[in-house]
């Protein structure tokens, strides 16, 4: 409720005794958007015009609202809240929904969990209200309009009865329409006949009521996808050293292995979440090229990964919770490693994983043949971890090459064809000399042209290219092309695309 004012108060170097209000334009008037505890005591409420508030209390600290910052802060709090449960949703503008089914016992019961959460929030400098209930609707109502605390299962009707109808998460119009006919509290509509209510105020009213009471299920959409496998470890004493982190990873991976084995799966994407004592969360993701479940292998990948992000890990005063989750898993047949030829593929995959973890998956590539006649598209690089089948493509390429007697292709292709200055004696012939990267080359022999048309269906493909294989006086062999023809007034541009051995 006081997210905006708490954010500003937290950022202040020194406490400011004046009441704090956050303002923003509503319609054409500067109004209060949020007020802190001191301002509330003075009777200031969100919605009040700033001019009026100033008239009543000239000594206010006024700050312009910044919804983007509030959203980011809420996102950060949500990140931190993941420590309680991975099933966490953001309820804008200032709420969080946590599905704690099956998690409360880890904290010694719901009361203790609630107390722990509120204590942490208070330590971070947030005025928070929290409620636990069997439904999202009831918890929402209790936290924002009720007495907070815990609403026991089956007590929803009692708890909700005295609360205003806005507690049902209804649109403003519905609430005011209900108020006009004298219905102000949830209790007022609990026992009314349903059909006339729905006819007059819409199905939405009944749906929200049913959701709050638990007669209709309401799904929670978590911020982050919930991992299929997860293991976590809280620490009484925060850890900070990389060695300790790695040891924890191995221990957690060993627990994941048991779960993975039971379902015959292996991990393809693993995420390590480290919860810092000050609330920040560090996430480090690794991916593998084949399903993995050996703790040693997972640890080895994190060794490389952490080596490349070590500074970014920034443990601060230490991590007090580590969680390892398998974000993507795949069936993984049990295999025998280290005997016979079959293991070679697995060996190579392990190497690729190690290199990818350290350098990044987009830096470890394999070459894939594509069905295209445009040279830079005919062979492209794909991340080696993607596990794309390559053999068929290259086999097709060799068959194609055998049938059409394709002229030789360069050994190294430049990332982008580089413009060169070239002089040709006959309009459609090869150049007699050209300049590339400040060096002149006299062409003593040339082979071509090989015309490669642009893709007619693509705007970007550009004009037809005439490729020439040329050799300069020193024996260097280049692959040049002229984009377009010598026609009309426009002079075509020459490019150098690759070099031959």
């Amino acid at each position, binding site marked *: 409720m006081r997210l905006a004012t708490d954010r500003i108060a937290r950022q202040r170097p020194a406490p400011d005794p004046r009441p704090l209000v956050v303002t923003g334009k509503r319609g054409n008037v500067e109004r209060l958007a949020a007020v802190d505890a001191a301002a509330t005591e003075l009777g200031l409420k969100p919605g009040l015009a700033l001019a009026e508030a100033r008239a009543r209390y000239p000594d206010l600290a006024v700050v312009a609202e910044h919804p983007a910052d509030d959203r980011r802060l809420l996102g950060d709090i949500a990140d931190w809240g993941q420590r309680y449960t991975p099933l966490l949703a953001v309820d804008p503008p200032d709420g969080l929904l946590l599905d704690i089914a099956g998690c409360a016992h880890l904290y010694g019961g719901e009361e203790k969990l609630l107390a722990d959460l509120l204590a942490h929030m208070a330590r971070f400098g947030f005025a928070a209200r929290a409620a636990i209930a069997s439904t999202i609707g009831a918890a929402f109502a209790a936290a924002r309009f009720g007495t907070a605390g815990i609403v026991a299962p089956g007590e929803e009707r009692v708890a909700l009865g005295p609360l205003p109808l806005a507690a049902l998460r209804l649109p403003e119009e519905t609430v005011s329409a209900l108020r006009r006919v004298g219905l102000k509290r949830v209790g007022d509509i609990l026992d009314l006949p349903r059909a006339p209510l729905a006819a007059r105020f819409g199905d939405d009213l009944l749906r929200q009521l049913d959701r709050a009471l638990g007669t209709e299920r309401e799904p929670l959409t978590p911020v982050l996808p919930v991992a299929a496998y997860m293991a976590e470890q809280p620490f009484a004493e925060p850890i900070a050293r990389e060695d300790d982190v790695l040891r924890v990873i191995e221990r957690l991976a060993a627990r994941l292995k048991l779960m993975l084995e039971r379902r015959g799966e292996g991990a393809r994407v693993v995420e390590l979440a480290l919860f810092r004592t000050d609330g920040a969360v560090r996430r480090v993701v690794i991916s593998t090229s084949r399903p993995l479940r050996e703790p040693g292998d997972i640890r080895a990948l994190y060794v490389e990964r952490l080596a490349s992000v070590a500074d970014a890990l920034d443990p601060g005063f230490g991590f007090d919770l580590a969680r390892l989750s398998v974000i993507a898993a795949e069936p993984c047949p049990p295999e025998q490693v280290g005997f016979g030829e079959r293991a*070679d593929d697995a060996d190579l995959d392990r190497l690729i994983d190690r290199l990818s973890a350290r350098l990044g998956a987009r830096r470890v*590539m394999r*070459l894939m043949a594509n069905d295209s006649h445009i040279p830079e598209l005919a*062979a492209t690089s794909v991340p080696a971890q993607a596990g794309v089948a390559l053999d068929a493509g290259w086999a097709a390429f060799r068959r194609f090459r055998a049938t059409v007697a394709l002229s030789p292709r360069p*050994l190294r292709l430049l990332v982008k064809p580089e413009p060169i200055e070239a002089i040709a004696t006959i309009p459609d012939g090869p150049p007699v000399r050209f300049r590339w990267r400040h060096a002149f080359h006299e062409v003593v022999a040339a082979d071509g042209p090989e015309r490669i048309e642009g893709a007619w269906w693509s705007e970007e493909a550009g004009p037809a290219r005439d490729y020439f294989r040329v050799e300069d006086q020193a024996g*260097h062999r280049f692959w040049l092309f002229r984009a377009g023809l010598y026609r009309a007034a426009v002079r075509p541009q020459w490019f150098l695309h690759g070099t031959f051995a």
Partner: protein
Amino acid sequence: MVVVHLPSSVGSRGVVRALKQTIRSVETGAGRGPPAAIPLGVAPIDDVLGGGLAHAALHEIAAARESEVAAASGFALALASRAGDARAVLWIAEDMGLIENGAPYGPGLDDLDLAPERLVTVATAKSRDVLWAMEEALRCRAVGAVVGEIRSTDRGIDLLASRRLSLAAGRSEACAFLLRTAPGTEASAAATRWVIAAAPSSAAGPGPPRLSVHLTRNRRGAVGSWLLEWNRVEQRFDLASSLSQPVADAAGDRPHRAAAAGA
């Protein structure tokens, strides 16, 4: 299929011993152990190398100049393909190297008898990571050859680094190639050092790759210079007939010599 025959009288310890022996014989006898040397198929070169390029060793291949990188790459990749023996070949280079000199191009590799599906390209942001990745790759027995491109503008590779790589190669089942964009002057632990330059084609028109190859260091024997031409049909290097060409590197970049020859 391995069948283990066990006399009925052997106890359980005997069974284990027999199995161990069988496994050992399978592991060593299946021809997995690579040959000690990889012949290039060019008799004079194989002779000075003592049968061929040493396996499980570090070889340094340098371009004679920055402009000869393509030629040196061709030589390195052709050797890597031979050394790799159908296993994976890793090409490790810095980002800048790939931008400056181009990335290995699949169809072109195919021309040099290196099946593109065998190649894994690794790009690194820092030159130090090239050496790290090479060492890492040499530990993997699915890798047949590792080519690391070191640019001349980098701080270079000192004796310590090359000795480290050389040791890693020695323990591996692969060949390591350091591809340098300019010949190095510092001491090196490499088994052989080569300096490569392109050579003009013999016939009219650009022919197959033709290289002037200098072996400047050879642990096993003499050094020498040769003119090699890639044989597309046999997929190997041939010794280019020295009669059709005056001198291997009477290159155009030495104008006084060209002028002298013309005069």
